[in-house]
């Protein structure tokens, strides 16, 4: 009736790490592809100020660093080309809605428009008196305009073809460092400035200044529209705030989990097949503390956190959910790509015009003369309706288990000691204690086995997990076997080592207590606040 239980060590506490949720598995699956030459994937000396993805397939992306804009292929993630015709550091980049043109602003205040493919310099938009930190094409269909913001606290709306500024949008009182075009309208865009304000602009009513003003309460480092166009997310200081612009600019949520300034935001998407659109959209935020966080703004919950070794400056996520790029202040570009199951689209087009059909490989009838005859059916999987008879699991018994079953306690202890697994040795000792036989075993050990035991005790009696039982045992052994230990040099040296280790451990404990004494008043003060 009763089954037999082998001796088991005490359970160890499971790590407090939560098992990965499907979502964090998803975000972790963005890995540096093997075929990229260096790891971390791309390293430039200068900070990566901005990353921009092309809105059309195959979603090439541009990264600005130093006086260059580098365009990477969205397919292979290889560097495609570098535009190096800037007079000063490039600060921002934006693809046109058809992906054919790329606009980039530099610190002199000039905005350059290039052909994304040929790299030919098409237009120079001059007007900003200081660095142009924001440049953005409208995202829906307008191919002729773009807007930019600069350190002169002016937001400009340009007609690209004529290289003319259509009008200046005034209102900010400090550097304009970020902005985004509305995903639903060509005429709406938003800009954020170091004067803590985020302003919504509508070019149709340009004369009346900004349509709406939001106070972020910290210098705004990044602002993006959420895909519905009705919500915006702003980053500045350690916060990311979500605003409802249709509902009159109401603050919906303030996420405060970064420890340093949040530098950049972008939209991400969990590539689940089903579910509502809003369920899949996430805000990716990166910060100078080196963390990238994924925020689910439907549930107002952080669903994933990832740490990078350097301060992060910019982040980008490809619209087809396959690539995630993060740029750091030290010029490293972390390109992560998710492995997508290659669908079998490479259908083999057979030139089957000949009409010769090969014979189907005839199934050989298995005979007992074949070796496979004896292996037949072993890989058979049970079908759904089958009643599965499970073979009773054979209990694996260790050597010491078998000896304990035969009540040969001393041999069991020695067998456990020979296996050199401290957990099982302690488990056997505990079982012997439960049988009240441990001390009798110890007193029956011969010299060699006693040496084995002392060597074990020397190694493990100061390990905190075993110390409670082993230190007491050491005392008893020294008491019980004092004569034997004295008579053997080897045992004496074991005990000497043991003594030294214990003294060392006591020293460590004392210094730890000292540290605890130093810390505890501080903790108490901190708790009072």
């Amino acid at each position, binding site marked *: 009736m009763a*089954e037999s239980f082998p001796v088991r060590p005490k*359970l160890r506490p499971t790590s407090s790490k939560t098992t990965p949720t499907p979502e964090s598995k998803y975000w972790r699956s963005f890995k540096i592809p093997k075929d990229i030459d260096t790891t971390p994937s791309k390293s430039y000396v200068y900070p990566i100020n901005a990353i921009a993805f092309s809105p059309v397939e195959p979603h090439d992306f541009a990264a600005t660093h130093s006086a260059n804009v580098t365009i990477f292929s969205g397919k292979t993630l290889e560097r495609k080309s570098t535009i190096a015709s800037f007079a000063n550091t490039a600060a921002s980049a934006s693809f046109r809605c058809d992906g054919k043109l790329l606009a980039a602003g530099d610190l002199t205040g000039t905005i350059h428009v290039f052909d994304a493919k040929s790299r030919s310099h098409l237009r120079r938009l001059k007007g900003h008196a200081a660095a142009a930190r924001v440049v953005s094409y409208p995202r829906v269909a307008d191919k002729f305009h773009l807007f930019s913001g600069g350190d002169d606290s002016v937001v400009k709306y340009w007609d690209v073809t004529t290289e003319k500024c259509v009008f200046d949008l005034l209102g900010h009182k400090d550097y304009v460092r970020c902005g985004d075009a509305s995903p639903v309208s060509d005429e709406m865009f938003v800009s954020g400035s170091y004067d803590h304000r985020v302003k919504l602009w509508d070019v149709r009513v340009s004369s009346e200044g900004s349509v709406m003003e939001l106070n972020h309460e910290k210098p705004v480092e990044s602002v993006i529209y959420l895909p519905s166009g009705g919500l915006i997310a702003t980053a500045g200081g350690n916060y990311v705030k979500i605003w409802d612009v249709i509902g009159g600019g109401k603050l919906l949520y303030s996420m405060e989990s970064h420890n340093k300034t949040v530098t950049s935001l972008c939209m991400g998407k969990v590539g689940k097949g089903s579910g509502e659109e809003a369920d899949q959209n996430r805000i990716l935020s990166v910060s100078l503390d080196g963390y990238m966080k994924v925020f689910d703004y439907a549930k107002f919950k952080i669903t994933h956190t990832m740490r990078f070794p350097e301060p992060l400056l910019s982040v980008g996520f490809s619209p087809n959910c396959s690539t995630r790029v993060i740029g750091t202040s030290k010029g490293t570009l972390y390109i992560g790509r998710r492995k997508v199951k290659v669908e079998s689209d490479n259908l083999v087009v057979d030139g089957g015009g000949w009409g010769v059909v090969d014979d189907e490989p005839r199934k050989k009838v298995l005979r007992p003369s074949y070796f496979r005859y004896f292996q037949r059916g072993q890989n058979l999987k049970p079908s759904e309706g089958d009643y599965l008879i499970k073979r009773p699991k054979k209990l694996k018994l260790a050597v010491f288990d078998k000896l304990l079953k035969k009540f040969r306690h001393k041999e069991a202890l020695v067998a456990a000691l020979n296996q050199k697994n401290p957990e099982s040795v302690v488990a056997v000792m505990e079982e012997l204690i439960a*049988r009240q036989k*441990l001390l009798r075993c110890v007193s029956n050990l011969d010299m060699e086995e006693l040496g084995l035991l002392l060597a074990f005790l020397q190694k493990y009696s100061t390990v905190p997990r075993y110390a*409670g*039982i082993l230190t007491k045992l050491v005392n*008893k052994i020294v008491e019980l076997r004092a004569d034997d230990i004295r008579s053997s040099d080897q045992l004496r040296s074991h005990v000497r080592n043991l003594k030294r280790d214990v003294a060392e451990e006591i020293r460590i404990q004392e210094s730890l207590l000292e540290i605890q004494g130093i810390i505890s008043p501080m903790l108490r003060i901190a708790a009072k606040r």
Partner: protein
Amino acid sequence: MFTGGKSFVSSPPAFSNDAKRLLVCTGNTVSVFSTSTGLQTNELEGHEAQVTSVIVVPASKVLNYCWTASLDGKIKYWDFAAPELMKTIDIRFPIHSMVIPSLLNQTTESNGKLPDLFSYVYSEVVKQKEEHSNSFRGQIQKCNLTKSRLVGGVKLAETQSPGSITISPYGKYIGVREKRKLRIWEIPEKDSEHVCYKKIRLHHTRSITALAFHPTERVIAAGDVTGRILIWRGVGLQTFSNSKLVNGPNKDEEDRPGVRDEDDADSCTTWHWHSAQVNVLFFSSDGAYLYSGGREGVLVCWQLDSGKKKFLPRIGSPLLYFISSPDPTLSSISCADNRIQLLRTTSMEFLRSISGIKLPSSHLATYEGFGSDVVVNPTDGVIAVPAEDYRVQFYSLFDDREIQEVQICQRNHHPGDEITVKVNLVALSRDGSTMSTVETRLPEEGIGSLVTLKFWARGSQSKQFNLSTVIYEPHREAGISSIAVRPTGHMAVSSSYGGDFKVWVNRHGTPPKDETHQNAGWTCHAVGSYKKKPMTSAAFSSDGSVLAVAAEKVITLWDPDRNTLLAVIGDSVEPITTLSFVGKSDYLVSASRGSKPQLTIWSMSKLCATWSYRLDAEAISCSMYNSTFAVLVLSEQMVVGEATLHPHEGTIVLFNAENAVPLSTWLVSKVALPSNLHLVHIYVVFVCNIYSFSRISGLAAISVSISVSIYFPRIIT
């Protein structure tokens, strides 16, 4: 009326002729169980004391008659299928054992009339005066069952104390064991009132504990206290073979115990495998095998010719009886943990078990906090009994059967060993979905004591308890005095003698829907202490808003959610051992024991004592709904009305918390097993519930019998 917790193993059971029923002596009654389902089908009620023997009349399969004998001195004849009492014979001596040899070799006389039926009873002589200095208390007498009287003048033996009679499979011999010798009588084929018996004695150097007769040959097996099995072959060659008659029971003078030389047997072989006392010896029906069993809980099957052994290990408890059935594939093993196992003899596997409430072993270690309590879930009448073999048994009092067992500690149980690991505390949540247990391992000369707190969650579909969290040494090395689960759930408290109590919470408020969820578990939520005093008891109020923890002599009241001390009340002389909130009322009852015991009722609204008694409360049980509670008092000096209580007698006093005058009182007498206190606990809990039932149904008298200890309560106020 509820009866519960009967002992199934006080006497050997008996199979019916079709092997479909098993007749088990259960206290004053004989219970009939179905062997195919393991459930009780009938009960034979009528005896007034413990039934000691049940003998099924061997006949065709349709006839269901049996004889029973009891300590009340009566022999009864039943039709147990009906069930119906057919006949009663009163011999006025407590019968400890009875055999009826002539049932086994029935012969019809020449005139076709059935001969008289004779039984041999091993009875206890109740002497009025001290006649002999060496008082022989047991005697074997002969009883004519047909004429319903004892056969005068026939006294086969007088012994110091009555025991059991063993009968050979075809009724040819009967034997008794008497310390270090066996006495065997041959029963003549035509038994009548005046007949002479041939008898022999066999001697051994140790006390004999078991005896068995070979079915066909003159082979006798006996087991002794050291675990040896002796096989005598060719027993009684001289005595039984020749026709010379030796008569008279008293030829004991030349008897020299321990000398085997003059035994009337060919040879005597000794087998020694058992390490402790042999309790069971049984020859298989063909005589080729001998089954033996003892304290180790291992059934050994010996091949009689070669002495080869086969084992059926890990039965879990000392074996007491092995009974074979008319169906050759079925037999039963009675174990000391109040369990009858039905065994398929061919494959040596257990088919099912019939189990009563597991009694605690008599040798309870006297270690602080090592006793074990029984907890009750009053809503469904299920009690959880921590048993010796590291299991908790769930037993339904309403259905009077075991529901399940939960293995608490993954350890092999060796019955008969000294108990060093024990499940000593169990607590259940009110809905029964959460269980917490504490197991303690005793140290060996100060090394390696371990207290483990475990939390279990009941699966929603499977109804099985799954281990949720294990906490080693929750209060460092200090023992845990009590655990309690909050009635509203998801919180538990453990109080320790080391001077602190810990509040544990389930990390996820609701149990996870999918049981594979790994993060569900219990974590320490708060640690509290009061002036470093040992915390001796803890209880939650019925709405879960107040946690009361007894800090030795005072009661501290805490808010379990906010971890704040609400109030400190009381100042008893002795440390408080029990705390309990009375139902949904605002009263708290505390009990302290020792030289100045006290039972006090505290009002939670006024934070002061309402009333108090100097009572040594053995157990307290509170009703769940109204403000009544019951107290069991076991005291030698207490005088209730005019009646003075004897030792091992006690009273159960039912109080309403609002009033110091008891509502009612029952006298309980405890017949046997003085150490068996936990049965009383069961009883108190029982009474509280019964009381509420009896009020509804208007029952005047309540009679409850519990297991070996039989209580005869009567209402005196």
